[in-house]
């Protein structure tokens, strides 16, 4: 038999402690105390906004909550049935959510500046889309390649391949 006279106070105390800890973390996150040690020490993501697009394919709240389901659904329609007319293609995301082709900046996936990576890192989501898929539009890919071959190009915001691999390791990419 469980001794209720001992278990109940223990439960109450642990509930109190966990509530206090949670409240502490919440207040710190609200206050934006990013650099402090302890709880909530992850910066709120600031993903790169599209340079030249007016509106997303769905309202913001739907995209935030449902983007993975929209992508997953259209993914199967595209691969299995060849339907490429849908609104929710990953290529479409990457065409917009990257610096414009005219901009010098090239942002690759594990860079926290990358539109997807910023939130995925923050939410500790490990998703491997970009082990296979292009993490930016075609024009930016060509640009990245050119910049890669020219190492002495300063201030482009480009990660070298080596840094890229290190970051992959850091962020838990397999």
């Amino acid at each position, binding site marked *: 038999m469980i001794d209720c006279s001992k278990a109940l106070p223990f439960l109450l105390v642990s509930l109190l402690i966990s509530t206090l800890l949670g409240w502490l973390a919440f207040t710190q996150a609200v206050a934006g105390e990013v650099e402090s040690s302890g709880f909530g020490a992850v910066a709120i993501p600031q993903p790169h906004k599209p340079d030249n697009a007016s509106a997303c394919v769905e309202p913001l709240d739907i995209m935030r909550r449902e983007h993975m389901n929209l992508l997953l659904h259209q993914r199967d329609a595209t691969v299995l049935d*060849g339907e*490429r007319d849908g609104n929710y293609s990953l290529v479409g995301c990457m065409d917009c959510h990257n610096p414009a082709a005219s901009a010098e900046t090239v942002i690759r996936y594990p860079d926290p500046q990358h539109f997807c990576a910023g939130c995925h890192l923050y939410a500790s989501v490990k998703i491997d889309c970009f*082990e*296979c898929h*292009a993490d930016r*539009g075609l024009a930016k890919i060509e640009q990245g*390649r050119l910049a890669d071959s020219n190492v002495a190009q300063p201030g482009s915001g480009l990660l070298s391949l080596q840094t890229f*691999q290190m970051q992959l390791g850091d962020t838990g990419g397999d």
Partner: protein
Amino acid sequence: MATELDNIEIRPARRRFVQGAAALATTLIAPGILLYKTGQASSNGAAKTPRWGLLIDTNALSEADVDACVSACQREHGWHSEAGSATDAQWIRKLRLSDERSGQQQFLPMMCQHCADPPCVDVCPTGASFKRDDGIVLVNKHTCIGCRYCMMACPYKARSFIHETLYDQLPVAPRGKGTVESCTLCVHRIDRDGANAVPACAEAVNRGEHKAILFGDLNDPQSEISQRLKSHGATRIRADLGVDPGVRYQGL
């Protein structure tokens, strides 16, 4: 002579109940059957569903042409040789046929033959290796576990496995470590242009009137590819296997 049936009393209420039950059963069960039949019709309707294929005229292809096919495919899909790797990606490769007596040499591009009965699909444990309704054989890399059974099963050695971590893949050709890949018949172009599509390898070698690599619908008797097959015939490589490849060769 009165039979037993004649003696059965017809009760309207009972009849209505039986009719109602039959209608309910039809509503509940029949949609499944109807959907099943529609699905079958769409994949088997030879008249409506295309079957994409290639007709390759080896007499019109020089060695340089075949090399051009390979590099065009590499440019289109972003695959290339990894330095020093014996397990390079090979979506398309150059074959040389030599006749020992005459010394005659022929060159032909070899890639996925997009079989009607693909052995790679038969052996795939996850269903990742599949044939689309229009006959294109593909790998669904989302479900591929990299077991490479399909590479063993393919009589044409058309598939390859990615061993290296890749960067800077192209938007039209997602490809990554741990999956099997092969020629897609430039499926992204076909989905966009339909019967007017030109695969990258064909684009690289077709000059003027005669198309050394002709893309078209094998199921449409009026298509250029069917007409040329009808008038000139073509070879299926390893026809003895009975897999009915969609890529045919002339001049072998």
